[in-house]
């Protein structure tokens, strides 16, 4: 009998929670009172908590670590300036090991347990796509620092109201590389090697293909691999016979470097092309020179002479004793966009901060000027880096 009562109580409780969860969906434009209940605790007391979900370990560990370094730098700076609205900023970082399911768990934890006001992350699109719905359903804004897949800020045709990003998107990046290959390098035949399990890689490959064909080029073959594979020789042997002038490999640095090494072992001399997933000091460490002659698009170059970039590099070097890669820069920019929005927001709630982020216009970041379009994407120019003697060198800037 007692069990029956406990059970019915539990059922009631579950029912109540379920109803509460559904409420925001029914009312797309919530009143101020409603949002307060879902996001009010985020800035209680004299601190503001912000979150970061990143791959601190795993296949793409340098992505998360660089981003976190950038964010920490921004947090330290703002706290030295006495914080935002007189409140100190506290950063909570969770590791997702490079797994989308872990990224979703980590963001839920940030929102429900740590009561963050805004959270940042991820570099990888597949992880950001997993995190986006949590931002929307909890009404806590999320700023992706470097996910370039269009689906990150989209829910079908609709724009996700609480998801933003401070980087350009894949259609632009893929187009940039297709233009670069066809116009600057005069390549006619390109082969593609894509990571089928990765939204980012598939997106870039598709946009590259479309633009390259439009410019009169030919895609001689399009083969696939999976992240974590050890052996790429079957695909490379197949591609070798197609006599491509270049290979487009829009993957992440670990696999790309291994693919390049195995390609050289098979006697393939064609240069490689890729996207910002290559951008890591580890790329050169693993490739050991196999990527010489390659080009990839990314968000910034350390050789950029503009004062804002050089000033940031000096600060970053002072703190971490290394030259920042694009993810350090984007982490810093994402955090500062968030801080500017919190400062501007009328009150410290998820909804108010969201409204402020949406109005970001002409923000001068290290990675360029950030203006968010109606789909919450930053429209910015891309940089092309060329690899020479196992070192990345600035090759070109391409504007949207």
């Amino acid at each position: 009998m007692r069990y029956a009562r406990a059970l019915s109580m539990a059922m009631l409780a579950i029912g109540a929670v379920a109803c509460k969860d559904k409420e925001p969906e029914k009312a797309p434009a919530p009143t101020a009172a409603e949002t307060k209940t879902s996001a009010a605790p985020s800035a209680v007391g004299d601190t503001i908590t912000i979150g970061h979900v990143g791959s601190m370990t795993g296949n793409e560990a340098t992505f998360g670590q660089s981003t976190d370094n950038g964010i920490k730098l921004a947090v330290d700076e703002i706290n030295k300036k006495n914080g935002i609205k007189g409140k100190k900023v506290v950063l909570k970082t969770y590791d997702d090991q490079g797994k989308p399911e872990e990224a979703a768990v980590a963001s839920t934890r940030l929102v429900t347990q740590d009561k963050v006001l805004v959270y940042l992350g991820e570099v990888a699109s597949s992880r950001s796509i997993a995190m986006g719905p949590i931002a929307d359903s909890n009404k806590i804004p999320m700023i992706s620092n470097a996910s370039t897949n269009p689906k990150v800020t989209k829910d079908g045709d609709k724009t996700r109201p609480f998801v933003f990003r401070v980087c350009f998107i894949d259609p632009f990046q893929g187009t940039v590389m297709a233009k670069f290959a066809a116009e600057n390098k005069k390549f006619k035949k390109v082969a593609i090697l894509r990571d089928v399990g990765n939204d980012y890689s598939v997106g870039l490959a598709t946009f590259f293909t479309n633009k390259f064909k439009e410019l009169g080029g030919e895609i001689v073959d399009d083969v696939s691999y999976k992240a974590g594979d050890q052996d790429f020789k079957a695909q490379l042997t197949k591609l070798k016979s197609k006599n491509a002038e270049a290979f487009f490999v829009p993957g992440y640095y670990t696999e790309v470097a291994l693919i390049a090494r195995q390609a050289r072992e098979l006697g393939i001399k064609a240069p490689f092309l890729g996207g910002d997933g290559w951008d890591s000091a580890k790329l050169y460490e693993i490739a050991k020179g196999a990527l010489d002659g390659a080009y990839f698009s990314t968000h910034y170059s350390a050789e950029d002479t503009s004062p804002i970039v050089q000033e940031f590099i000096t600060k970053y070097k002072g703190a971490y004793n290394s030259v920042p890669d694009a993810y350090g820069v984007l982490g810093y920019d994402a955090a500062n966009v968030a801080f500017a929005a919190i400062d501007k927001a009328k009150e410290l709630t998820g909804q108010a901060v969201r409204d402020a982020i949406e109005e970001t216009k002409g923000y001068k970041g290290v990675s360029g000027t950030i203006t968010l379009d109606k789909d919450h994407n930053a429209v910015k120019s891309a940089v092309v880096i060329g690899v020479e003697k196992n070192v990345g060198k600035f090759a070109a800037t391409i504007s949207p």
Partner: protein
Amino acid sequence: MTEFLQHLVNGLSVGTIYALIALGYTMVYGVLKLINFAHGDVYMVGAFAGLYVARGIGVDAEPSIFKAGIVFVGSILICAALGVLIERFAYRPLRQRARLTALITAIGVSFLLEYGFQLPPIINGEVPFPPGPTPRFFPEPFARVDFEPLGVHISNYDLVSLIVAVGFMFALQYIVYRTKFGTAMRAVSFDAGVAGLMGVNVNRVIVWTFALGSGLAAAAAILVAGSRPSINPLLGLLPGIKAFVAAVFGGIGNVQGAMVGGLVLGLAEEYVAGYLLSSYRDGIAFALLIIILLLRPEGLFGRVRAEKV
């Protein structure tokens, strides 16, 4: 033609690895009728053991054949010891229970190794222990030299792998069929109870079988890591399953069967990825094996044993 031959070389180099791992499955199954699902993870531990040894003796700074030998033998010994430990603490206490129990423990041990190796480090060093989920890079144990007969690229790594693997297989064949220990192994395999009554030390035979099988997995790991240098704690997952399939395909419990099964699987994968769809590399190769097993359920070299009722 060149392309076809290149696929052949690539397929053989992958296939020998599957074969070496499959030998471990087959031996343990042959003796105990236990599918040791932790075997793929012993292979993973072998790669890391090799990495620690390589760091310890400074292979990075100046690689040499001598140091490569130390890494190789060191890793084999560490894994053989691990195999003995796993047998002693995970399988022996449950040996008299239903066979399903042992299978579940095997899966447990497998997860323990995979996720145990991803825990935050206890011992901090250049490469910490446990290493965590970040991939590590295996140093080249000796200088790479490429040959190019008929336009087909072969490196000295491929040749060394092939020679070492085939050498191990023949050595194993010799041990099983020509030595006293091998006779004891086959006797335990036939009927452990009766073999025990005949004066065979069953426990000792089983321990040595595990040590031998685990050592072979470590050898495979070092051969792979030398030329495909990225290693991480989930490394053993897929090769483990594939080698298991190779062993079943060849007729589980049969040494030649495991060798042939491994090679066939390696070649099948390579040609599927090379001439058909690369996305279906794993899928089609497995499908092929399922079809063959439908036609010959006991495996290529397996014998149908008449069950006494």
